[in-house]
């Protein structure tokens, strides 16, 4: 048993490293195109590494499945990891349709960020509560995350489009928004970096606080910037909080989550500023020259195509399979649980996207901005709904 689990973690680690190397090779394809003779070798190596990495991650998935006795999609770590795997899979599909190497240069780092982010949550194998003991767990979760992964590729293509197309010679609303998107990616990196750092340092700070008459303790793994309302620090030699969260912020471990959010934003901000200092220009402006050879119309098409492919998959997994399972487990196929509502919001959003594109001719940049908005909604549903809004789906 322990053996399987260690094989499983090693495989996930292997996949992570392979994706990282593959990203570098995808990066190399940009420079390579100048030299006609060698064209494609870096690309071939990159996609091969990606596929091997993907297979390694499948081995992770299967071994963990065997070890836990249920599909490893039952907590936030497992689910986010699977979503990362779905991103890679979706990228591989789109790559073989369009042979667009630059997509890998952006899709794989996003998958890496997602997997790194996932690893910061508890990774123990957890038992399934009765409501999750159903085959629909695998069917629903895998389809919905695959659908969301394909839709995310639309964002990747849209992001490349925006970086490629937006005029960086003057500061404008568009450049600012693009920086906002890039900055939010830095927040995820910031979260992983800061969590890993304090994990290694084995930092703990216990707090005791009152809520509705019962005394709760919470264990901060990051130094408390925001402490619990009326909380008492129990651990010695730990940092006293700089301020306390407002009293309405309760819910399972809300102060700790809020503290983590502050840390992630701070760390992301520091990383972002460092990057700005390094490039001495906007991040978008720094990347733009690398993308001059990419055809924008192809990016636009990939972005749209990903929605066209992902929308039916998402509908099937996120609404139809979800309803069937909810009908069996909770006696109603639709219950306006926050996660369900956000699946509906996602669906509405992409429905609007398709109508705007097909009937109102929103192509190119408008469409790329919409793809970014869709990704924001998906990430909100994956992360914020679980962490902030309480509901039946609450993982972690």
């Amino acid at each position: 048993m322990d053996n399987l689990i260690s094989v499983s973690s090693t495989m996930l680690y292997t996949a992570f490293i392979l994706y990282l190397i593959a990203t570098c090779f995808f990066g190399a394809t940009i420079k390579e195109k100048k030299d006609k003779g060698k064209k494609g070798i870096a690309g071939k190596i990159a996609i091969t590494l990606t596929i091997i990495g993907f297979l390694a991650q499948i081995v992770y998935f299967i071994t963990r499945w065997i070890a836990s006795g249920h599909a490893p999609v039952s907590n936030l770590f497992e689910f986010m990891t699977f979503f990362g795997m779905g991103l890679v899979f979706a990228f591989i599909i789109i790559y073989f349709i369009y042979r667009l190497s630059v997509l890998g240069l952006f899709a794989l780092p996003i998958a890496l960020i997602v997997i790194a982010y996932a690893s910061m949550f508890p990774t123990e194998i957890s038992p399934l509560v009765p409501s999750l003991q159903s085959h629909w767990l695998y069917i629903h979760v895998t389809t919905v995350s695959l659908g969301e992964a394909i839709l995310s590729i639309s964002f990747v293509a849209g992001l490349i489009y925006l970086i490629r197309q937006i005029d960086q010679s003057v500061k404008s609303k568009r450049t600012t928004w693009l920086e906002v998107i890039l900055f939010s990616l830095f927040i995820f990196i910031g979260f992983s970096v800061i969590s890993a750092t304090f994990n290694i340092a084995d930092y703990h700070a216990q707090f005791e606080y009152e809520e509705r008459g019962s005394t709760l303790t919470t264990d901060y793994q990051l130094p408390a910037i925001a402490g619990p309302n009326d909380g008492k620090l129990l651990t010695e030699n730990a940092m006293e909080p700089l301020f306390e969260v407002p009293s309405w912020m309760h819910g399972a471990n809300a102060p700790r989550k809020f503290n983590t959010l502050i840390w992630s934003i701070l760390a992301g901000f520091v990383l972002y500023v460092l990057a700005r200092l390094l490039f001495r220009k906007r991040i978008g402006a720094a990347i733009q020259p690398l993308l001059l050879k990419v055809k924008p119309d192809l990016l636009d098409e990939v972005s749209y195509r990903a929605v066209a492919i992902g929308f039916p998959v998402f509908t099937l997994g996120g609404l139809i399979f979800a309803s069937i399972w909810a009908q069996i487990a909770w006696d109603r196929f639709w219950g306006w649980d926050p996660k369900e509502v956000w699946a509906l919001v996602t669906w509405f959003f992409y429905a609007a996207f398709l109508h705007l594109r097909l009937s109102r001719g929103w192509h190119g940049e408008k469409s790329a901005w919409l793809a970014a908005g869709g990704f924001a909604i998906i990430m909100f549903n994956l992360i914020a709904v679980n962490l902030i809004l309480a509901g039946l789906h609450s993982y972690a």
Partner: protein
Amino acid sequence: MNKIKCDCGHVNPEGTVLCEACGKPIEENQHIDGNDKRTLLNMRYDGSARRSQTYNKSIVDKIWSFFSSVKVGVWLIVIALLASAIGTIFPQEMYIPANAVSRDPAVYYEDTYGIFGQIYYQLGFHNLYSSWWYMILIALIGISLVICSIDRFVPLYKALKRQKAKRHETFLNRQRLYSETENVTAEEKDKIVHALKKQRYNVRNENGHILAEKGRFSRWGPYVNHIGLIVILIAAILRMTPFMYLDDYVWVREGERTVIPSTDGEYYIENKDFILETYDKNNDRFKEAIEQEGMVAKNFQTNAIIYKEIAPSVAGAEPELKKIAEEKIKMNHPLKFDGYTLYQAGYQLNEFTSMTFKVHETDDPDEKALGTFTIDLNAPKPEYKLDNGFRVVVDQYYPDYSLENGEPRSESKYPKNPAFVFFVYPPNSEQAEVSFVGIGRNIDATGENQYKLGVQDFELRDVSGLTVRKDYTLPFFIVGAIIFMLGVIQGMYWQHRRIWIHPKGNGLLVAAHTNKNWYGVKKDIEKVISGTNVEMVKDQQELDE
């Protein structure tokens, strides 16, 4: 109001943008699709006349054309999206946790979320999804769906049916993919036609004008999926009819048989046993997680027997019953019988069924029992005679004891927290001592009691909560969902590709259009023209000026 006759002789309905037969832009209507400002033609709905955009006479027509606008449709979707999102800011009324300060929304939101919570409640967002305005919003989307589809499907269908292989030159050179080749031999042309057929294009040849078409049926995808959505909305309306749908809840105690609500007293359920299992904390697999997160439930199960009444009886009278099902109801494994479904939905552990009391002397440190008696908490007797001569009269019984304004009372009829006022008559005495006994309570009213009552033993049982459902609308939802999925797949996973070949002098014009995947159609053309000297089509698309 005149029909438009094109140069090619075809008579088009009013509002046509591109001639249905030859595709020549109809001069006065170019503004409709914005073609007047661009070099390429807008090909949506193939330039057919969307009727709504042409007549605007009566009120009916005005309403019709309002809903027929995709712009309106998208706005409705966006509003619904925002409204739905707002409803998740704070929990909806039905998700107010059971351990909340108060389950009364008027108290809960303000108390928990402060001023924002109060505003949220006062705006009615605590019940957003069943509010009249949200329902109207969804209904408006439904109306827009129906009208948009009718208005677009008919003209598009006609346009695609009437299209001719021979197209006007301007139609071709204003397509996104276009090329012109000076000299093409007849063999080369045959080769192209052959190659097109090999790629499973449907090829039509009219005097050398060629139309190669594939995947036209994907154009109907949107209309098919809209039909699916309409079926789903109809199902939602049906669900509001009591005959089609019922939803109820029953608490049933271990060892008890009770009528299943909303079945007109026809069905009864007996709870043989309620089982709550948790994961073993020594389990190798989950040890770490359980150490971190605490006990995790493994199974909720009711071993139930379902009875049906044989002959209708008067309510209240002892019914004549027949056993029709004996089953384990678990989460994810509901029990179905005669159109009803029972779901394991809740439980209450450890309700009291009986309590055994003992009488002992107040100052006896060992509390040696002088006598004992057992009370069935569901049917207590007024008086208990003990073997040793003691007599205990039950003066008051509070099954679910609480103190309200200094006054003892019962919160419900269920023995969740039983308490008693006893009159204890010692042997051969008419002088009663008053004792108040409950769980963790033993109050001597006067402080002078010689005898004391203590709880010696008690028995507990669990209560299982089951949802009762009857839902005849599910098949409609399923059919709607299937139609929707088929429509989306049809529209999204296939593409409508058309390639026109137009002889001009000794050469040819080639143009192509697809509703998605231009990359794919380009590859098709590459294959088709390989080995000929026909020019590859150029992509004339203008992206964001």
